[in-house]
């Protein structure tokens, strides 16, 4: 990623920043991340679990999004939901990306038996439908945020692994890698210092798209009773609560969680697309 590739990244950045919509999405994601960070440090929305006698109070000046069954402020819970949503994206990436990149790099670089074994392993993992895989894992691990991290993290590295493998397969016989061998670079050095920077764009695109998957999966898991513990302020729990609240005319918890999730997920969709367009050479020169 040093001097030789600066031109490439600069060009990609230029392409990216020309896309106004993508920049807006980046700002939105930045804003959410800031909220998550502030909530994490307890600087905002720290009273999210304080109960008051005002059960199901409609939106008012005191509670912009009203209160839930225990009289807790829905706005604060929504903001805490941002913290959980962002943390799911981050932690699962920290688990899945190293697995996918490492196995993909090994398979693509060494080929042969190593490749066969790794391809077999990810084909097998891939054969178990995603939802069943995640459900089974959270089910045996038991409910809780940690299980959500682990089950999504350890099951969603296959796509990235396959892409990284393909790229390493292409790159390993390029001139710059031969040049590195001639200079006496070790396999590890060639893999992770020389080739890896050239597949970094794939990791970046994958990183952005993982947030979409993580946030959506959390909602489904919460509905199935496998997600975050009840009482925790996750969007999945809030949406799940709504199935009993709507018949009572309580719509604000559903609305707050849905809108909060909508803008964040939409921003990640557009960002992922924009990154792909800016970084993927296959899409270049096509408009």
């Amino acid at each position: 990623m040093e001097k030789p590739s600066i031109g490439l990244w600069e060009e990609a950045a230029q392409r990216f920043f020309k896309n106004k919509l993508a920049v807006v999405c980046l700002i939105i994601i930045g804003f959410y991340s800031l909220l998550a960070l502030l909530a994490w440090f307890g600087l905002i929305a720290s009273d999210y679990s304080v109960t008051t006698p005002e059960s199901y109070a409609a939106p008012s000046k005191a509670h912009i999004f009203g209160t839930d069954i225990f009289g807790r402020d829905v706005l604060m819970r929504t903001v805490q939901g941002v913290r959980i949503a962002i943390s799911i994206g981050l932690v699962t990436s920290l688990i899945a990306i190293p697995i996918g990149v490492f196995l993909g790099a090994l398979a693509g670089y060494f080929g042969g038996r190593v490749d066969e074994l790794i391809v077999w392993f990810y084909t097998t993992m891939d054969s178990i439908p995603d939802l069943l895989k995640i459900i089974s894992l959270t089910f045996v691990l038991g409910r809780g945020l940690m299980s959500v991290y682990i089950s999504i993290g350890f099951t969603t590295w296959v796509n990235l692994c396959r892409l990284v493998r393909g790229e390493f397969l292409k790159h390993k016989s390029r001139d710059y890698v031969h040049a590195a061998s001639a200079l006496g670079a070790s396999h590890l050095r060639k893999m992770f210092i020389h080739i890896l920077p050239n597949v970094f764009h794939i990791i970046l695109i994958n990183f952005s798209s993982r947030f979409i998957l993580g946030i959506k999966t959390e909602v489904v898991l919460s509905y199935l009773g496998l997600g975050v513990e009840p009482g925790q302020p996750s969007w999945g729990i809030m949406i799940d609560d709504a199935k009993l609240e709507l018949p009572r005319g309580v719509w604000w918890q559903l609305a707050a969680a849905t809108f909060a999730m909508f803008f964040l997920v939409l921003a990640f969709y557009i960002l992922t697309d924009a990154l792909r367009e800016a970084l993927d050479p296959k899409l270049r020169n096509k408009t």
Partner: protein
Amino acid sequence: MLAYVVRRTLYVVPVVLGVTLITFILFNIVGGNPVYQKLGKHGSASEIKILTHEMGLDLPLTQQYLFYLKQCVTFDFGRSWSTNQEISSMIKAGIGPSLSLAVPAFTASVLLSIFVALGLAFFRNSIIDRLLVVTSLGGISISLLVYIIFFQYTLSYKLGVFPISGYDTSWSGRWEYLILPGIIWVITSLGNEVLLYRTIILDEIFQDYVRTARAKGLSEKVVLFKHVLKNAMIPIITNVVLEIPFLYTGSLLLENFFGIPGLGGMTVQALANSDFPVIKTMTYVGSLLYVLFNLLSDLSYALVDPRIELD
């Protein structure tokens, strides 16, 4: 060609073995001792001993795995812990309702989205195209759960257009209950599919043969619907074939929410009851179907597209 077919078909064996190994490790090792799960907190020492022996858990792990493998091959998965029914007969009973929901809804969503995607490709980069792309993206940014809760509340509970939930096992009586979940299925899968098919079609539009077709003076309509569509159908059909195995669980959420007694609803019920063998079986059968359809898709791909390298 024949060599490829044989090799590709035989590859199913190690993959299915891998799936059994992963599910075994997950449920029999990571999952903790199922005896405690089954007896709850109040099992006495002798009860634990008897049950451990009954379930074959005092055998070495390799023998337990071989027993499980035998179950997987003979499709005799034992009994459910919560209902004590044969799991294989539970699956037989659930597949009808699941497919009654899944097949019409899936067919409708695929046809509709191919149609819309073609329209978008025709009007590409116009206002209509951009607007519909943004609408699709917006549509898939909302959780499936929100759609279900919202539509069930407004259309069934408030307006009474559809029954809130339930099912009728008679052939003619069931559809009344399946319309709303079917509509929600179509709405929620449309966004993803339209975007995917649009990308596939646009990928074709930049191929050389399209330029040739245009150069010889064919109208955009003929180019799009005759030349492009034919070629785009290959990746589209592959994608459709790969989605078919997912129909077997119907939709976990839709079936559960609308009280449809299919395999999806059964899985959610099993989760609620900590019914290990049922979840394990559902995972295995789901994977098996996926492996088989994947094989089917690869083989048909090789047959249809001569450009595929067979090595």
